[in-house]
């Protein structure tokens, strides 16, 4: 390990040497939670070697931004400018950029080019910048591959649209367009002809200086290898992965199996050899991912791309194999060779080994496209998913069925749509032009008896996979026949009629192939009662418990198996576990010490509304349990998390967070209880049914959770306590709605319980839009009521995060939204401590909160949301669980709320902890991170439905500084080239006048749409008026496309259709052309006032590192 020694002896004095680790920033599509996993392992690995870690990452909700004596955290944008400032202040000896995704890698390349690394003597510890450039630049890469005789798809780099056209002619359509230097396939797509090429190439060229036109390999197999290499040139492949979906769908949007299933030894080794050859030729140090296209009918292959860094795939590979890739990669970067590093999972083997799997894992992406109005649901070369799950099984159907349940959170899983009647035409359409639900369409075709060959022709999915699906359908059909033949009419009787006679062997046929009890119940009942069966989760759940009892009577239960990287060749102390029916004997388990044990339920897949912050909570809970001499057992199924790391808990079950599976594990472990309040809504939803099944829950009682969750009960409690709330109604018909809107007026917030299409929540500003929405998008009936509530305009929104103990608040923090109410709290900009609230408002709010906490008898973490207008407060909701703001408020105030909450749940009484927010040395601002660039067709506007995919949180000397940092971290920076304003409402225009005036002083040209321009002229601000999108001449669209503006303010007004459409076009174009976009006037004003008040001279001097939490 000479490098480590050099590092330790370099620089001045005996101080501990520092390694700078770059994070990836806020979670966005294509760059998500996987980098919290990798960064956190890297930090662990570095600190273990006696070095200090300095982390730059504005993502406050991550585990890697937890400061400690050895880990200094800077919540700053990961850009060359800020990283340089941190380097200047900290003077680290080395830098690691491979753990922070494309963001960190791009930053490293820039730092190197600017000579900053050389200037401050910071050693790049991983792959050299030249190799990174070769791996990123397709031309250089192709040339390099030709040198080592590795085939690359015919590809031509183009700098202009004309060049692109010529290239496509030369290669021949269909072609694929890709933007160089882009993450997650941004700006890429397939073109079948010149028209499509034009449509794709133009915006792609705006995102990147160069695009690539390549031969399309649609239908080829897509196979990836994860490769690790040390400075000695020792190279191993950690595993390979095969995409269920053939080439054509971005690998981040593909269903992926590990290891490959349809490859022979020859194919496996040819691609393995190629990966090793490529990685050696690039002189990679650390981890690297290589993607290949493999012909479905020969040994031909092409290398598609390599990522010379940790990636989403490496996180998946790490969880698939149990091999701690990021941890080992960091060691390798410090100069250790793979032969001298122990594999911490086995303790006896060395890190220079290729994991052997005796199970299969299936990853399914989580899309959440229904959350976005207007987005195309088709999948292609641009990634759209926001999260993923991984399931482990001993056969493909078992793993796949688990994964489908994990990702959909439907107990009936793959059989969910088995009664849905789609026309054959629709099904073929969905199979040929894949969408997020293609798997279900394939199942539907198989249920209709369509041959595998035909489905293969249309989908190009390998027939082996299709046959595996058919095996599932065949078993479904068996159960359908048995159920249909039952003459009994009562639901319970039907279940008994069908399943009473099942032998252990029969049960096993179903369970081995991954059928859940709820799935069996729903197939049975749906096929017995057909249309007459009114689908109800409660009924299915009840029937599933009968099934569970019947099957347990026959001794049919799952066994625990271990992931140990050696497929059982060596005994392993690993406690990384899964359950399967593909075995008869529990694995040799390492017993836990005789201490109390708690099971923590994780958050499941990341999605809109549930993200890394809940993983932070679960990890915090686990750490607190272990620190206080409890055993911690975690159940989670998200491979991008730190909670599923092999050493975050004492036992990890990589499993479904479902009633059936949690009960299975509960019965195996007999713990003190289950912690269900630290993983967000997924575990929270299970609380009642778990309690009914006799499970002991730690913390809030099920009654408390129910009291907060059940809208009627909660509303009644507020009435009883005399606390106001926006008026609402649970309407079952249109008359009720009419009466209600006559009473409260408009606007109203509409939340149907059954949504036909589009987003679930909507604001209706008048009768017409309400009627339109209800007619077109929602079903309304006594089974499917619609909640309509008063939508309070012009109010402040305030959050209170806290921990209660036996009905008393023991700690809490007030967070104030920068935007007025109406922006979903997950998309809002939040500041702690509150800046502009009346003391009286805070007093009222705390009083109400105490009353609610007492009324619900809360005993654990909670979050409340309030509206305040002219010193009057109203309660919107109370969550009897940790909220997404927990890490933010914990880190800003320095009080670890996750830890306090866990101690309460362990039955300790930490007593009242008073933290005076007004005595904080800094101010914290949390801002939402959006991924609109990846969701073409979506209106990039803030509204009542959450749309952000991540968040950042920064601290500053004052509100302004923190706000600027947070917004810069979400890529919003002040206008330099020009500003476009299109401020709909009069009030908004007026408010902006002073800002416009001061901007003019700074010589930033201002453009405005006609109405706004006229208004500004009247108020003495000279601006350039530009026409609406449908007007000839220099209209607003041309302006944005021309690159004359880099900041767009568009405040929507809810009036004329033309303006609505035009507004959306402006916003979408602004996003597509990389402008900073703001659509909320309070945010605009705060931002520009911050820009003006923060003197450029002091901004960013004396950076603040995050103080550790207590």
């Amino acid at each position, binding site marked *: 390990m000479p490098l480590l020694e050099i590092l330790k002896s370099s620089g001045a004095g005996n101080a501990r040497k520092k390694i700078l680790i770059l994070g990836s920033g806020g979670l966005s599509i294509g760059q998500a939670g996987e980098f919290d996993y990798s960064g956190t392992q890297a930090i662990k690995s570095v600190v273990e070697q006696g070095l200090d870690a300095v982390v730059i990452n504005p993502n406050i909700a991550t585990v890697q931004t937890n400061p400690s004596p050895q880990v200094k955290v800077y919540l700053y944008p990961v850009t060359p400018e800020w990283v340089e400032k941190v380097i200047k202040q900290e003077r680290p000896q080395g830098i690691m950029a491979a753990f922070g995704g494309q963001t960190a890698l791009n930053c490293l390349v820039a730092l190197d080019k600017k000579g900053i690394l050389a200037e401050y003597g910071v050693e790049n510890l991983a792959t050299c910048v030249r190799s990174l450039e070769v791996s990123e630049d397709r031309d250089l890469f192709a040339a390099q591959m030709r040198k080592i005789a590795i085939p690359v798809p015919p590809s031509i780099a183009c700098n202009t649209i004309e060049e692109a056209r010529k290239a496509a002619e030369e290669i021949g359509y269909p072609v694929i367009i890709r933007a160089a230097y882009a993450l997650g396939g941004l700006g890429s797509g397939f073109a079948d002809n010149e028209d499509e090429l034009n449509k794709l190439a133009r915006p792609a060229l705006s995102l990147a200086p160069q695009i690539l036109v390549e031969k399309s390999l649609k239908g080829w197999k897509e196979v990836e290898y994860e490769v690790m290499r040390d400075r*000695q*040139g*020792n190279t*191993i492949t950690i595993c390979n992965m095969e995409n269920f979906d053939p080439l054509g769908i971005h690998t981040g949007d593909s269903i992926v199996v590990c*290891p*490959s*299933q*349809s*490859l*022979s*030894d*020859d194919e*496996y*080794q040819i691609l*393995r*050899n190629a990966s*090793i050859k490529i990685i050696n030729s690039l002189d990679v140090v650390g981890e690297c991912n290589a993607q290949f296209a493999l012909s*479905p*009918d*020969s040994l031909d292959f092409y290398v598609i791309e390599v990522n010379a860094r940790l990636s989403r795939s490496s996180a998946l590979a790490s969880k698939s194999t149990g091999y701690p890739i990021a941890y080992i990669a960091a060691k390798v970067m410090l100069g250790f*060779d*793979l*032969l*001298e590093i122990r594999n911490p999972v086995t303790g*006896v*083997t*060395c890190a*220079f*080994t*290729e*994991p*052997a*799997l*005796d*199970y*299969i894992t299936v990853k399914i992406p989580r899309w959440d496209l229904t959350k976005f109005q207007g987005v195309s649901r088709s999948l292609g070369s641009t990634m759209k998913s926001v999260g993923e799950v991984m399931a482990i099984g*001993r*056969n*493909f159907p078992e793993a796949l069925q688990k994964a489908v349940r994990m990702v959909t959170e439907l107990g009936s899983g793959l059989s969910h749509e088995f009664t849905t009647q789609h026309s054959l035409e629709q099904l073929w359409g969905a199979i040929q032009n894949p969408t997020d639900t293609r798997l279900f369409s394939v199942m539907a075709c198989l249920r209709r008896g369509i041959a595998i060959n035909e489905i293969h022709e249309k989908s190009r999915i*390998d*027939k*082996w996979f299709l*046959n595996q699906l058919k095996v599932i359908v065949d078993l479904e059909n068996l159960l359908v026949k048995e159920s249909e033949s039952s003459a009994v009419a009562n639901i319970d009787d039907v279940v008994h009629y069908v399943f009473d006679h099942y032998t*252990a*062997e029969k049960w*096993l046929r179903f369970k081995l192939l991954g059928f859940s009890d709820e799935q069996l119940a729903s197939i049975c009942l749906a096929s017995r009662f057909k249309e007459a069966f009114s689908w109800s989760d409660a009924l299915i759940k009840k029937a599933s418990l009968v099934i569970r009892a019947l099957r347990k009577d026959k001794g049919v239960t799952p*066994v625990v*198996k271990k992931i140990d990287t*050696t*497929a*059982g*060749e*060596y*005994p392993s102390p690993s406690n990384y576990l899964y359950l399967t029916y*593909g*075995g*008869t*004997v529990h*694995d*040799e388990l390492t017993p836990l010490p005789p201490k109390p044990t708690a099971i923590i339920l994780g958050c499941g897949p990341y999605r809109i509304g549930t993200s890394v912050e809940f993983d932070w909570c679960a990890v915090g809970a686990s750490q607190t349990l272990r620190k206080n001499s409890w055993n911690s057992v975690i159940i989670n199924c998200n491979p991008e998390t730190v909670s599923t790391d092999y050493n975050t808990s004492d036992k990890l079950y990589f499993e479904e967070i479902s009633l059936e599976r949690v009960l299975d594990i509960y019965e195996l472990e007999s713990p003190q209880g289950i912690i269900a309040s630290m993983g967000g809504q997924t575990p929270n939803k299970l609380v009642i049914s778990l309690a009914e099944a006799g499970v002991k829950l730690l913390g809030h009682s099920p009654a408390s959770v129910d009291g907060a969750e059940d809208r009627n009960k909660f509303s009644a409690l507020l009435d009883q306590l005399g606390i106001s709330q926006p008026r609402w109604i649970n309407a079952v018909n249109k008359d009720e709605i009419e009466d209600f809107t006559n009473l409260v007026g408009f606007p109203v917030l509409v939340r149907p319980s059954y949504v036909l299409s589009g987003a679930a929540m909507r604001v209706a500003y008048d009768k017409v839009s309400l009627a339109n929405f209800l007619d077109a998008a929602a079903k309304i009936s006594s089974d499917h009521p619609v909640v309509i509530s008063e939508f309070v305009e012009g109010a402040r929104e305030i959050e209170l995060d806290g921990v209660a103990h036996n009905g008393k608040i023991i700690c809490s923090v007030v967070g104030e939204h920068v935007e007025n109410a109406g922006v979903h709290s997950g998309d809002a900009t939040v500041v702690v401590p509150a800046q502009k609230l009346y003391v009286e408002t805070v007093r009222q709010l705390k009083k109400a909160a105490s009353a609610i906490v007492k009324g619900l008898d809360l005993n654990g973490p909670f979050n409340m949301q309030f509206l305040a207008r002219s010193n009057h407060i109203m309660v919107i909701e109370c969550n009897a669980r940790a909220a997404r703001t927990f890490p933010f408020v914990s880190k800003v105030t320095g009080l670890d709320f996750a830890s306090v909450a866990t101690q309460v749940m362990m039955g300790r009484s930490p007593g009242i902890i008073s933290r005076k927010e007004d005595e904080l040395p800094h101010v914290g601002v949390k801002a939402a991170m959006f991924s609109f660039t990846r969701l073409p067709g979506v209106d990039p506007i803030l509204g009542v439905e959450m749309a952000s995919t991540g968040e950042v949180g920064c601290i500053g000397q004052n509100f302004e500084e923190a706000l600027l940092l947070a917004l810069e971290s979400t890529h919003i920076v002040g206008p330099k080239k020009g500003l476009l304003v299109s401020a709909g409402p009069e009030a908004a225009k007026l408010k902006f006048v002073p800002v416009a005036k001061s901007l003019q002083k700074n010589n930033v040209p201002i453009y405005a749409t006609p109405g706004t321009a006229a208004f500004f002229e009247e108020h003495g601000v000279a601006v350039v008026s530009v026409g609406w999108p449908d007007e000839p001449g220099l209209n607003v669209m041309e302006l944005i496309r021309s690159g004359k503006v880099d900041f767009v303010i568009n405040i929507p007004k809810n009036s004329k259709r033309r303006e609505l459409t035009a507004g959306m076009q402006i916003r979408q174009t602004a996003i597509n052309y990389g402008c900073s976009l703001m659509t909320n006037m309070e945010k605009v004003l705060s931002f520009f006032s911050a820009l003006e008040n923060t003197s450029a001279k002091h901004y960013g001097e004396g950076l603040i590192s995050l103080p550790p939490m207590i």
Partner: protein
Amino acid sequence: MEKFGSLILNNGDVFSGRLIGAPVHSSGEMVFTTGMVGYSETLTDPSYFGQIIIFAYPLIGNYGIPTLPEDPGAIIPAGFESRSIHAAGAILAMDSPEVYHWNSIEALDLWLKKFGVPCLVGLDTRHLIQLTRDLKSPLGRIEPKEPEGNRRLGDSFSFELDKEHFFDPGDFNVLPYISSHSRKIYGKGKRRVALIDCGVKWNIIRQLLAFDCEVELIPWDTDLKTVDASGWLISNGPGDPENTGNLISQVKNLVDDVRPILGICLGHQILCLAIGCKTQKMAFGHRSHNQPVQLCGTRKGFITSQNHGYMVLEDSIPNEWDTWFINANDKTIEGIKHRSKPFFSCQFHPEAAGGPRDTDWIISDFVACLKDR
């Protein structure tokens, strides 16, 4: 119609499973492999003679079985390591009755039937591997009938033992059963290699031919004095290296000469015995595609394919010889090298098939030492 059968271990444990392949009795040493691909290579590897293989990877047979040319003189194509299945039986968690791979002509079941090899499916293979590991490669027997009573797939129960019915390949010299019976010449290359067939894997021949050699494949008991070659390759093979008849003493004569020698796997062990080393049966062998070996005196490692149950003891290596490779996990000897003469041998399989091909340079290095004809 599904058939059932049972696996009986010589400690009395019995496991039942679905029977595919040939419905016959079979017995042998219980071994396991953790390779995730390459089942057709594994099953046709002569080194598995007399062994029942438990496959750790639970899904076997996914990509079917490739075509084998009927001409017995032809070079066998990749995918097979010999003309027939040498393993005594196979134990799987799950098979794949339907196969679709472009290079496949039949499913595992039919192929096993053709070669008269039984296979049990649906067992808890991970448990069996741990058992095999702890019992240190017990003997086992596949019975083509279901055990008495109402049993579930994979269930285990005790059984009245009949010890005589267990075949132990370690008990006798197995080379006469797997070595070729007559001398055969392949290729017309510049260098002439005599390949001593102790159960040779065909990829050794394919690789030698690729490096422009003429290969004379000679039966294990050929009088080596009658062979004209510029170098010797002692092949892999099954069984106890000490139980190989007069081969060791024949190899002793080769060592007195200067013509290059390469030993692979059993060939390595035989060479070691010939120079006076000692061998020993391992608790459980190395049978996988992920064995790390380190090139001695360097920080360089290779991932290798392995299949052996005996090892060479380090203390016994004579003076003129060096340890060439060691296993990076358990530090056992993985190869030796003569200090001055072109003699070397490795415990792992540089010819791979199946498994990683990181050490194929050993064969090319060996060929490079050979004098042209």
